């Protein structure tokens, strides 16, 4: 079976479109998106009388027609941001009212995800090509139900999915980060979560771990060291391992066939951990490039026979 795995597209619509096309492009039998599906940035597009105005990366853009507006919105979405069309009064209210931005942000995320899942329906042949989606630590809780309700993708969190003889278990939680994001837990709790989900696997020989957090100290988890103010230290030249020890220990003790990860975008790489092939394809969603891993799995041998990290 050929699997395409990507992760951390963070709201980039161009990456999502590429992900949907990846099955056909790489002739994959299964596509998996490992978490952190939603974006981090919302860009207000201000509707004035007869025109719209937006500031994108310091450049003020004025749009006179609906077609121009849609083109700019498309570019904003492709970069992983959410365009939010607002009146000047709404923009003021967003800034002034406690929690207003959060509510609008969530609404835009859900609206965007809905659109994405509609696209998936067409691209994945109405669910004939299996597609697994999961949340990551940066994803709001509300997306879980939206994905769960989709007819053409499967929500992976906490489940052991049987995929043609392979058993895929997913966990979007990570060890704590300096940003205090949604799905974070101390290592002891991560261990409990991992043990709970892994206990559903009948055959570890053909098991696939889809854990958002990479295993600690494996080279798949190297991020720039930050000081107390979240500024990269020493010009960004110093990297440090920030992965999960619970994930590392689980791989070492359970020894699944394959373990796929994300979370640390800079740490694209591959690591052999006993019989387990651990992979983090990294992410450069901001460039509109979908980094991923094309994996060939042999059900009889219970091993990954081929892999290739790609920049699609």
């Amino acid at each position, binding site marked *: 079976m050929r699997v395409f795995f990507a992760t951390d597209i963070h709201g980039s619509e161009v990456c999502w*479109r590429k992900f949907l096309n990846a099955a056909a492009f790489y002739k994959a039998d299964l596509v998996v998106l490992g978490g952190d599906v939603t974006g981090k940035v919302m860009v207000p597009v201000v509707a004035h009388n007869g025109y719209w105005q937006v500031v994108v990366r310091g450049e003020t853009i004025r749009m006179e027609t609906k077609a121009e507006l849609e083109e700019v919105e498309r570019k904003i979405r492709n970069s992983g941001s959410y365009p939010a069309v607002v009146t000047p009064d709404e923009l003021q209210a967003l800034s002034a009212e406690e929690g207003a931005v959060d509510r609008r942000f969530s609404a835009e995320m859900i609206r965007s995800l809905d659109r994405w899942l509609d696209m998936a329906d067409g691209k994945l042949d109405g669910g004939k090509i299996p597609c697994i989606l999961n949340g990551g630590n940066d994803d709001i809780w509300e997306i879980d139900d939206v994905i769960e309700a989709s007819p053409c993708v499967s929500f992976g969190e906490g489940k052991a999915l049987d995929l043609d003889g392979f058993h895929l278990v997913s966990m979007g939680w990570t060890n704590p980060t300096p940003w205090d994001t949604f799905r974070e837990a101390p290592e002891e709790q991560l261990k409990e979560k991992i043990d709970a989900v892994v206990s559903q696997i009948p055959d570890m020989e053909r098991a696939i771990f889809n854990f958002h957090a990479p295993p600690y100290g494996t080279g798949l988890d190297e991020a720039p060291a930050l000081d107390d103010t979240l500024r990269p230290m020493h*010009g960004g030249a110093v990297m440090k391992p920030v992965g999960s020890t619970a994930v590392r220990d689980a791989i070492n003790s359970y020894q699944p066939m394959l373990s796929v990860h994300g979370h640390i975008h800079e740490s694209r790489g591959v690591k052999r951990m006993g019989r387990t092939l651990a992979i983090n394809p990294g992410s450069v969603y901001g460039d509109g490039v979908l980094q991923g891993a094309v994996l060939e799995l042999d059900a009889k041998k219970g091993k990954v026979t081929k892999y290739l990290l790609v920049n699609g």
Partner: protein
Amino acid sequence: MATDAIGGETPTLFLRKATGLVRGWSVRDSMIYAVLATNVVTLGIYEFSFQSFIPKGQLLTSILISGVWVSFLVIAYAGLIVTIPRAGGDYVWQSRILGSGLGFVMAATGWWFILWLWAPIYGNILSVELFQPLWATLGDPSGAAWFATHTGIFVVSVITIVLAGLLVSLGMAGYARIQKWCFYGGLVGFAVVVVLLLVNNHATFVSSFNQEAHKIFGVNGAYAVTQAGAAKSGYTSPVFGFSPLGASMLLIPMMMFYLLWPNWGSTLYGEIRGASDFKRVFAGMFSGLWITVALSVVFLLVVAKTFGNDFYNNSNALYWSAYYGGKVAPAIPIWPYPVMFAGWLVHNTAFQVVLILLMALWFIGWVGTLFLSSTRVIFAAAFDRVLPDRAAEVSEKRKVPFYSLVLMLAPAVIVSAVYAYNLTFQTYTLDATLVIAVTYLFSAIAVVLLPWLKPDLWRASPASRIKILGVPVVPVAGLVTIGLLGYNLYEWLTNSAYGVNNHDSLYFMGGMYVLAIVVYVVARLVRSRQGIDLSLINKEIPVE
């Protein structure tokens, strides 16, 4: 969900709290790395000593023109860094913009294979700027001279390789702190040298030089012997100044040996890229480059004032003339290290030793970079399945990249042996600059073609908004950079003064390109047989 509004009273974007949103790093940090990379002491002063190979050339003129010209390279690279902010640098940019095969060949040659040659060059510099003057100052001139022998150079090269390898193994965290202290300590040493040369006049220097040269090497009237020796060997120093321009232009390919590296190690992390990122990246490299240029100018001015420009050039010319078989022996039998000469203005051995050690910090803060780029390229190539998977393996216990170290260190030791025992091979020193310049050339081509080959990527880049009179600055800077590198490549390959355009040198460099191509082709064939299509690595998935 915590959010930040950006854009003042009227927000232009809202940022929710999420992983990886970091503040931009300080310009000061990247400036320090740029100053250490374009190292005025280890690379600059060493290269100044070769002025006599273009005898009419003015160092000052060539340094200033080089500074201006390399500034365009800084703009071009700042554009690439903010457009594709990846640690892989040239490898990633060229692979993504120009193609995987070219990216691998250029990265393997420019950031890996040629570093084998940099190892003995680093070693030689350590020998002439630390071991030789230190031993001499401590009263053992024959010990000092040993470091200039074939075996001496080889031993110091191996010391350098081991030191750089150890630093790679230990990781960058501690070394980055060491680098910073080395930078500040080195600056203090540099300031001491400048002050010494400012407060002493030429007459004092001549007498101090004669006195210390007699004390250490037993030479009488060393100053006059040096001046006479240079004349006898047929060398005449130009009068200190700026002209002639033509000959000074010919020194530029030599100045690239130290001024071509302000972009060394420049990376950018962070996903929310704004217009300010370009300015920050540019400012770090640009200020680093121009601090080095300023230090060079100050150094040459105070040297001309106190040593005398003619004496400085004469001592260098005479040393290299004798080294390469000239019949006139220099008064000082070791490399004429200006720091040692400046230290001689204070007749105190302890002070002289401390000054040499202080200036050696410029080396310590710099040597760790020798193999860092190679590790990155080897790892990236292994992850791309071009090299065997083992090349990227790191030992579990000590986190040592054992196989990649072998791929770097073993050839470096062999090349060091050839370099140490073969004088002709030593003249290929500028091969080390040339091969990297070729890699840069393709990155410059990539930045020029970027708006056409990857229009979406270009439009999304903060670099695309840097314009003068409506013309995007970065691709234009790329064109000027192509001019800079093209000029240097032309001179290196056609003018024998640089010592690189002879057959063996060309075979040596050509061999590296052949090796890289062979590795890539073999990898394609082997992986193809395994059912892995390497052409897929950078093939873009259709969007629609």
